[in-house]
């Protein structure tokens, strides 16, 4: 079984700061991590490989430094890593990203064998759109299972997969054919620690690195900023409300009473509403 997992290297959001004057993101010195949602996809892929044999290829599109995340994925036990990197890819929105990734997956397919399953995370913590998975599926003509909470069964001989998909108000149990694309839901598994042997192998492993041309991109104008139908017109800080928050003064009485008084003064109907809400009548 050949499984491709798309991972993205993202800045560790907990450490991101915005410049107070220019309103730009201060990326310098911010450590990068594998998009946390992608680790659930990677672990699901590794489990299937362990069960059925075969290989897991991790793929990322990003700057040369994204190699760090690929090596990390190898330490968890992925078999092969592919880095898609080219200045033409810069500034890609989801449509341009899926064009590049789908092209690379075709090339992976020619070079290392056709994938049975392509995994992506549910969403990234920087782009945060949850669209790249469905976009890749559409471009490759793969069936798609999104928001998968559990893979019940894969039958490599019959080429079928059965999975539980989170939907509004419940879980859909779906059965479809391989090859397909799966986006994994968060908290569905826990990434393994990785064996010592994998860590050693990862440090020495050769990362397959492709430029746009090497990956087989035929139309460079479909990549990066140029290939992106959406453009960011304006980045701005949210404005404060016209009227500042009333800060409750509790110099003369207990803070809890002072706060409640202020709330009820401000919204006279609130006391009655809360009494109803509190007692359910």
């Amino acid at each position, binding site marked *: 079984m050949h499984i491709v997992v798309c991972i993205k290297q993202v800045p560790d*959001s907990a450490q991101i700061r915005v410049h107070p004057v220019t309103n730009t993101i201060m990326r310098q010195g911010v450590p990068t991590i594998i998009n946390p949602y992608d680790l659930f996809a990677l672990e699901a892929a590794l489990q299937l490989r362990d069960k059925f044999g075969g290989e897991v290829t991790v793929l990322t599109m990003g700057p040369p430094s994204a190699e760090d995340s690929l090596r990390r994925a190898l330490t968890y036990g992925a078999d092969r890593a592919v880095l898609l990197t080219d200045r033409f890819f810069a500034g890609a929105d*989801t449509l341009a990203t899926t064009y590049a990734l789908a092209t690379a997956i075709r090339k992976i397919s020619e070079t290392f064998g056709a994938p049975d399953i392509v995994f992506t995370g549910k969403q990234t913590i920087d782009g945060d759109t949850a669209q790249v998975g469905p976009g890749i599926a559409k471009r490759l003509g793969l*069936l*798609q299972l*999104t928001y998968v909470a559990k893979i019940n069964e894969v039958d490599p001989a019959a080429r079928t997969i059965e999975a539980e998909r989170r*939907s509004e108000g419940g879980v*859909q149990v779906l059965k*479809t054919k391989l090859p397909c694309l799966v986006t994994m839901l968060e908290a569905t598994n826990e990434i393994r620690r990785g064996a010592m042997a994998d860590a050693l192998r990862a440090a020495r492993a050769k990362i397959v690195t492709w430029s746009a041309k090497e990956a087989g991109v035929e139309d460079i104008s479909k990549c990066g900023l140029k290939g992106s139908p959406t453009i960011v017109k304006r980045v701005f800080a949210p404005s404060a409300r016209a009227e500042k928050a009333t800060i409750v003064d509790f110099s003369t009485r207990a*803070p809890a009473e002072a706060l409640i008084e202020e*709330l009820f003064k401000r919204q006279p109907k609130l006391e009655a509403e809360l009494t109803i809400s509190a007692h359910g009548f």
Partner: protein
Amino acid sequence: MSEPTKAPPAAAGRAATKKELPEHFKAYKHVWVFIEQERGQVHPVSWELMGAGRKLADKLKVDLAAVVIGPPGEAVQHAATESFCYGADLAYIVADDVLTDYRNEAYTKALTDVVNTYKPEILLLGATTLGRDLAGSVATTLLTGLTADCTELDVDADGSLAATRPTFGGSLLCTIYTLNYRPQMATVRPRVMPMPDRVEKPAIRIIEHKLGLVEEDIVTKVLSFIPDRDSAKSNLAYADVVVAGGLGLGSPENFQLVKGLAAVLGAEFGCSRPLVQKGWVTSDRQIGQTGKTIRPKLYIAAGISGAIQHRVGVEGADLIVAINTDKNAPIFDFAHVGIVTDAIRLLPALTEAFRARLSPHSRDRIAS
């Protein structure tokens, strides 16, 4: 391929990006809302989007259309007729037995076909698991732009959709355009837009579109549907009163204080994202851009700084109360009432004070 001409910095934004809309896109008119219905139930986000879509259509002086996709029968017809009460000028229906349960293949074909036939300028979908699954496939099939999880939709002076969403980093918003492609697509999460009033209206124009698929064409089969247990469902998004805690509470034990106050108020409890990441609270309780959006009558936030991703999830509340030790915390920029004090000490006192004030016996006092 012509390079965009380099404009002087002042004019950079528009001049550098605005090209003439390709001729074949000029036929694209009107605003559409995808009406999401499953097992006979319309998701409320669809009506919320009708409210937003109505405003866009009025500004553009075009029609607002509802698109309903599902199995033939009562439920789909009803969803279409209801859409008129929420502002539709017309409705499209694609009804077929293969559309009984949501499946990406069939729904993508249904929606792409109606778009290609009737050519909307703007297409809005709810950012639910169904809407996001569908929107990504449809946008890629149509090779157009899609802006996810918008918090504000507007049309600018030259009629382009200006879709605003929070952007990476903690305190910024960005406005995204899809200038040279049609339709311009956007998704919006439940509760981000207010629910419009329902006004009884006749269903004047319904257009039925044939799907042209048979069950054999569709590979994916739905084996079963397991509804969530009622006890597992939290009503956070649609609650009238919400109490939430953030990192300022310092420990999972202190988060109990939030639950305590919520219980006394008959409220739902919620939290900021770091508490979910730390495993203190389950993810269905997270409020904000990547959690739930709420619009309660009263929102009390204790020990929450008020980052943009949190703010966009709570701004629709009628009354926002912030408890924070830092008088410069950004939450005071959008809260209505603030109190600068230690939440760990205030919460128990507040719980007791509310308990005393809101006793059943005080109801009689209010009534009289």
